[in-house]
């Protein structure tokens, strides 16, 4: 996984509340048993006038020429709610999004972001609005810079603090893969499991019964 320390990019505001994962990645766009080939389906219901024929809606924020190359999404409350599908985050990542700034996230969505090297940064809505307003004036020039080390996002000369759990921050900085991290704890897992099975044999009892 690519570490993420500082990211500078074009922002795209999508400030409505409750942007759900069905909107981010409509279920019918999940066509292959794969984590890739998804960017095209990102926000398909909003991005295309006709999703089947892929006719772009020129009004959708990510289709506007001034947002070309957008890599920072400015979101509203409860971003990424709904289905836990990780396809939504894979699609965002493949599209080029590295940072999502929102007042709040669905917890599973937030974890999925970190697992895929995206920064889900939390900040109050008024602060996000002010960054959005600044970006709106000239999106290509008024780029935002998110700094995972200092926990600040900068734009228009303002440095806005954001929140992310410490462990998640470390993982982004180190680009640490989940499984690799847990592999270091194998001994503790095995000891716990031995004790659990000894004290509560029924936890695996049915296996014995089937044998």
């Amino acid at each position: 996984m690519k570490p993420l320390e500082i990211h500078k990019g074009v922002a795209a505001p999508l400030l409505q509340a409750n942007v759900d994962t069905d909107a981010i990645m409509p279920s019918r766009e999940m066509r292959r048993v794969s984590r890739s080939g998804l960017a095209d389906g990102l926000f398909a219901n909003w991005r295309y006038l006709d999703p089947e024929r892929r006719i772009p809606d020129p009004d959708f924020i990510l289709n506007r020429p001034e947002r070309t190359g957008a890599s920072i999404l400015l979101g509203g409350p409860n971003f990424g709610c709904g289905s836990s599908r990780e396809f939504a985050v894979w699609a965002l990542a493949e599209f080029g999004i590295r940072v999502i700034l929102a007042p709040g996230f669905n917890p599973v969505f937030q974890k999925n972001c970190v697992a895929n090297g995206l920064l889900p940064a939390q900040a109050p809505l008024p602060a996000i609005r002010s960054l959005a307003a600044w970006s709106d004036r000239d999106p290509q020039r008024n780029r935002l810079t998110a700094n995972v080390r200092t926990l600040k996002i900068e734009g228009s000369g303002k440095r806005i603090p954001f929140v992310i759990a410490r462990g998640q921050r470390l993982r982004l900085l180190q680009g640490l893969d989940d499984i690799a991290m847990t592999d270091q704890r194998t001994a503790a897992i095995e000891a716990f499991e031995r004790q659990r099975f000894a004290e509560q044999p029924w936890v695996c009892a049915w296996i014995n019964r089937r044998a």
Partner: protein
Amino acid sequence: MSGTLFDKLWDSHCIETDGDGASLLYVDRVVMHERTGAVALDSLARRRRSVRRPEHAFCVADHVVDTLPGRSDDTRVPGGRDFIVALRQGAASFGLRMFDVDDEDQGICHLVSAEQGIALPGLSLVCPDSHTCTLGALGTLAFGIGTSELEHALATSTLRAIKPATLRVSISGQLLGHATAKDLALTLISTHGVGGAGGAAVEFQGAGIDAMTLEQRMTLCNMAAEFGAATAVIAPDEVVFRQAALAPLAPKDAPIAGWRALRSDASARFDHDIAIDSAQVVPQVTWGTSPEQCGGLGDPIPSPKDAAARQALDYMGLEPGLPLASKPIDAAFIGSCTNARISDIRAAARVLKGHRVAAGVTAICVPGSKRVKRQAEAEGLDQVFKAAGFEWREPGCSMCFFAGGETFGAGKRVVTSTNRNFESRQGPGVRSHLTSPAVVAASAIHGRIALPDTA
């Protein structure tokens, strides 16, 4: 030391907690479906990793399977077949039990988990699906997870998570008249908002819960996913023990004494508390594109208080001020992990018996599992549905969501027993009205949104 049920479940699975407050939890059971399981198993194989406890991992084909009678692996979902086949291959190569399309016990993963005893009181279970919290009704510590976490759980038998706050929802009174657990959940969500639980683990308790069947409790816990909850739990009682102990994968000597300890201590402290009186709950129907946008059938649709509500009404083709009752519908759907258990099928059948679906209304019933379907057929309920003009289908998620396969058509108004009324959830442009199975059935007969006739 006194604790909440959630604390007890959490602590008994917590291997360790790091300095950041992230815990490594032991995962007793992993359940996956073709939509995400196929990708995770494929990715594990690529990394040359194994499934650490294959005997505790289960695969279910439910999300994109066809539900028409006589079905095969073919599905109208683009690429859907590949997901089913890939899951089957993954299950075979890792040695996992799979509830395949033609399995006698196939069904929606959360129903299968409960019916089979994969979920039991006191176990921890993860499944890459946001409605995994349904299983909290059994006293299971159940979490919906992402695909990377699924891969992680399969490889390591653990889940890394930060302990959420706790929210007690005290439920007094009993449901009256046509009010159901679904209406209770919708009332709770409309009162406190879809983010109402604020990411907390919800415990439902109180006399209102004691009076509920396990199936009603599952409906309530299921809807916690629409309430912004990390998960939901209910202290298991005799009602649960009886059913759990009978499940095929339950231990021969169920540790009932241990299960009895799975309850919050009287002095336990919750971070947040809310209360609701079941007796005040009336049948609900959603009018918008979020589960919180709902009200009683006769209540006028409120004037939009923000842009989101305006957009919702616009999408739904509704005017504020008028009630939903009597609004003509195009389709009726009974299915999903929320409301497709045997009690739901029975409730709908009671309404349908001796009636016909109104002309022009498409009506579909998809039992939640093969077990439910078999039981319904043994009781002759399939005949009631068919005689009324309902399609009687094979189990699966079906039109609970749209995956590019079947849908009702843009602009169609659907009364549905499912859990999500998001824009295009049931297909592009479909207008979904969430409600209970009995109201779906009554509306199908009347061709408009209606309560069951009071006999």
